[in-house]
C-alpha cells in the first residue's frame, strides 16, 4: 500500500500559495500575452484613432491638434452625407432582404431530403469565394451589351438592357446583390442550425394540437429561432455597414460608382486616408463609423432583447 500522502512533491515558494491563489496565478499567466496583445493591437490603436481624429495629420507633417475641425468639415461635406445615405441604404435594404431570403431558403431546405447536401452546397459555395475575385466576376456580369452576361440574358428574352453599375439608381442595388449573394450561404446554414436545434417534439406537440404549418411557423418556429435571428441581424448589419471589397473592386474606374452613388463609408475612409493622405480626417470618419456600428448594434440588441 502506498503512502497516505506523498510528501515529496511539496516544495518552496509555489506551495506557499493556497489552492485558490494558485489557480488565479495560472489564470493570469494564461492571460498575460493576450492582454498585452489586446492592449497593444486593439485598445491603444483605438485611442490613437480617437486622438488622430482631432488632428490634421496628413502623413507628411507632424499632427497638430485642431479640435473638432474634422468633424465640422465632415458634417459640411456633401459627399459625406451621400456616403452616409449609401451606407444606410446597404444596411436597410441589404439586411432584411438577405435575412428573409436566407430564412425562406433554410426553412424549405431543411425539409428537403432529396439531394439535400448537394443543394445546400450550391447555396453555401459562394460564401467560400474571395470577395475581391468574385467582384470582378460580377462586374463582368453587369456589363452593358454585348459582353454583359445579364444583359445578354435580358436581350435574349427581349427585355431592354439595363445599365446596372453605370447607373445612379441601379448601381447600389447591383453591388448589394453581390454582397447578399456572398453572404447568403452562411446565413442559410446558420438558420438551418437554428431550425435543427428546435426539438422536433415541439412540432409534434403542435401538430397534435392541430396547428397548421403557418401557425407553427409563427407561433413556434420564429419565436424559438430568435437567438439565431438576433445573431444574424447583428452580424449581417455589421457586414453591410462595413461593405468595402465589393465596391472597391467593382468600381475601380470610378471608385464609389457614378457620382459616388455606391460609395460606402469605408471606401470614403480608404480614399481619404490612402489616396488623399488626410489621416486626421479619415480618423474622424472611422470614429463616425464606429459610433454608427455601436448604435446600430445596441439598438438591435435592445429591440430584439428577450424579455
Amino acid at each position, binding site marked *: 500500500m502506498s503512502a497516505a500522502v506523498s510528501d515529496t512533491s511539496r516544495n518552496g515558494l509555489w506551495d506557499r500559495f493556497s489552492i485558490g491563489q494558485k489557480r488565479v496565478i495560472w489564470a493570469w499567466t494564461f492571460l498575460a500575452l493576450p492582454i498585452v496583445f489586446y492592449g497593444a493591437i486593439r485598445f491603444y490603436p483605438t485611442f490613437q484613432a480617437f486622438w488622430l481624429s482631432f488632428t490634421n495629420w496628413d502623413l507628411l507633417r507632424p499632427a497638430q491638434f485642431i479640435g473638432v475641425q474634422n468633424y465640422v468639415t465632415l458634417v459640411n461635406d456633401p459627399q459625406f452625407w451621400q456616403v452616409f445615405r449609401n451606407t444606410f441604404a446597404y444596411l436597410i435594404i441589404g439586411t432584411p432582404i438577405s435575412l428573409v431570403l436566407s430564412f425562406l431558403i433554410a426553412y424549405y431546405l431543411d425539409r428537403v431530403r432529396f439531394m439535400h447536401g448537394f443543394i445546400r452546397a450550391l447555396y453555401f459555395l459562394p460564401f467560400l469565394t474571395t470577395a475581391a475575385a468574385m467582384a470582378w466576376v460580377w462586374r463582368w456580369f453587369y456589363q452593358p451589351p454585348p459582353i454583359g452576361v445579364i444583359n445578354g440574358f435580358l436581350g435574349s428574352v427581349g427585355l431592354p438592357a439595363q445599365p446596372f453599375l453605370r447607373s445612379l439608381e441601379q448601381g447600389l442595388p447591383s453591388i448589394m446583390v453581390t454582397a447578399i449573394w456572398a453572404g447568403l450561404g452562411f446565413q442559410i446554414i446558420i438558420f438551418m442550425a437554428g431550425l435543427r436545434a428546435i426539438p422536433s417534439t415541439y412540432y409534434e406537440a403542435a401538430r*397534435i394540437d392541430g396547428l397548421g404549418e403557418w401557425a407553427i411557423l409563427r407561433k413556434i418556429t420564429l*419565436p424559438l429561432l430568435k437567438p439565431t435571428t438576433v445573431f444574424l441581424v447583428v452580424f449581417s448589419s455589421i457586414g453591410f455597414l462595413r461593405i468595402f471589397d465589393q465596391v472597391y473592386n467593382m468600381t475601380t474606374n470610378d471608385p464609389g460608382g457614378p457620382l459616388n452613388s455606391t460609395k460606402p463609408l469605408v471606401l470614403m475612409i480608404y480614399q481619404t486616408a490612402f489616396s488623399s493622405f488626410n489621416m486626421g480626417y479619415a480618423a474622424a470618419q472611422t470614429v463616425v463609423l464606429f459610433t454608427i456600428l455601436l448604435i446600430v448594434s445596441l439598438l438591435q440588441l435592445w429591440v430584439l432583447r428577450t424579455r
Partner: protein
Amino acid sequence: MADIRLEGLVKRYGKATVVHGIDLEIADGEFVVFVGPSGCGKSTTLRMIAGLEEISGGVLKIGDQVVNEYEPKQRNIAMVFQNYAIYPHMTVGQNIGFGLYTSDLPKAEKQKKIAEAGKILGLEDLLDRRPASLSGGQRQRVAIGRAMVRDPAAFLFDEPLSNLDAQLRSQMRIEIKRLHQRLGKTIVYVTHDQVEAMTMADRIVVMHEGRILQVGTPTELYEQPVDVFTARFIGSPSMNLLPARASDGAIIAGGAKIGGVPSRTGSGDLLVGVRPHDLLVGEASAQAAMALKGIVTVVEPLGSETLVHIEVDGAPAIATAPAKQVPAVGSTVDVWAAPGSLYLFDAPSGKSLGRL
C-alpha cells in the same frame, strides 16, 4: 367512445420492420402501459396511434372509425412527451392555453379552462411564469395541462417521467394515476420502467423486438409470465433463474432436488425461477419446495429487509433476509422457497411451463 383498436399494426422504416403486426384492444377509459426494453418499438407504436408516424400496415381504429389516414388533430387525442415539449417563450398559462389554439371557444371560456387545468394540477400560482423557472415536475404538469384543456378522447404519454429524479418520479406517478381516476379518459402510457407499469396500469403490454409478448393486468404478469423475458422484466429485483434438469420426473436445480414435482414433466433442460422475495434466508421449513445452500457475495440491507446476493452452484441469485439479519460476506447460508413460489421454464425456448 374512445376505445382504440390496433389490428395487425405494422411499422417499417425502409426495409427494417420495427413493429411486426400488433393486435390490441384498448377499452374506453382504460389505463394501458406499454413496457419493454429500449428500442422494442413502444414509442413507434404510440406515435402511430397519435398520427405522428405513418402506419405501414394494419388498421388503427378509434371508436368505430379507421383513422389510419387522419391527421393527429382529427383523432382527438393528446400527447405528453418525455421532454415535456413546453414552449420556453410562452408563460405557463400560454402553454396550457396553446392546447386550445385551434379551438374557437370565446376567450373567456379558454381562460376558464386554463385556470381550471391549472387548479387541478396545482399550477395556479405559476400561470404567469416562464417554463425556465420551473422544476422538472412542474414542467411535466404544464405539459399535462396543455393536453387536458383539449378535453381529448385519449391521452398518450411517452415516458413522461424519465427526466425526473426518483422522488419526483414516484410523486408524479401518483398524480397521473389520480388524474386518470378523476378524468376517466383512456390513457396509453409508454415506459421502460417496470415499476411505473406495475403501479399505474390497468393492463400492461409487454413488448419485445416489435412484438407483443404478453398483455395482462399487473398481477397476471407478475404471477403468470408467459416466458423468461416477462418474468425477469416484471418485478424488482429480477427473478432468479437457476439452470435445472428434469429427469425421471424429478427436477434437480442448484444441486438440490425440487420437491412436489408433478409427474407430467418430461426430461430436458429447464430453468427454475424464484423471485428474490420468495427465496428466504434461513433454515428451510419442512414444506419448502426447494432448499439450497449459497455463498454470500454481497449483502444489501434495505432497512425493512436485507437482500443477500449469493452464489448457488456457480449461478448468482438474490435472496431475502429479514431486516435485521445481515449474513457475513463469504459465509454459506441456507435459502429456501415455499411451494407455489417457483416458476418453471423451458430452457431452449424460454416458454413458461407453469408454476410449482
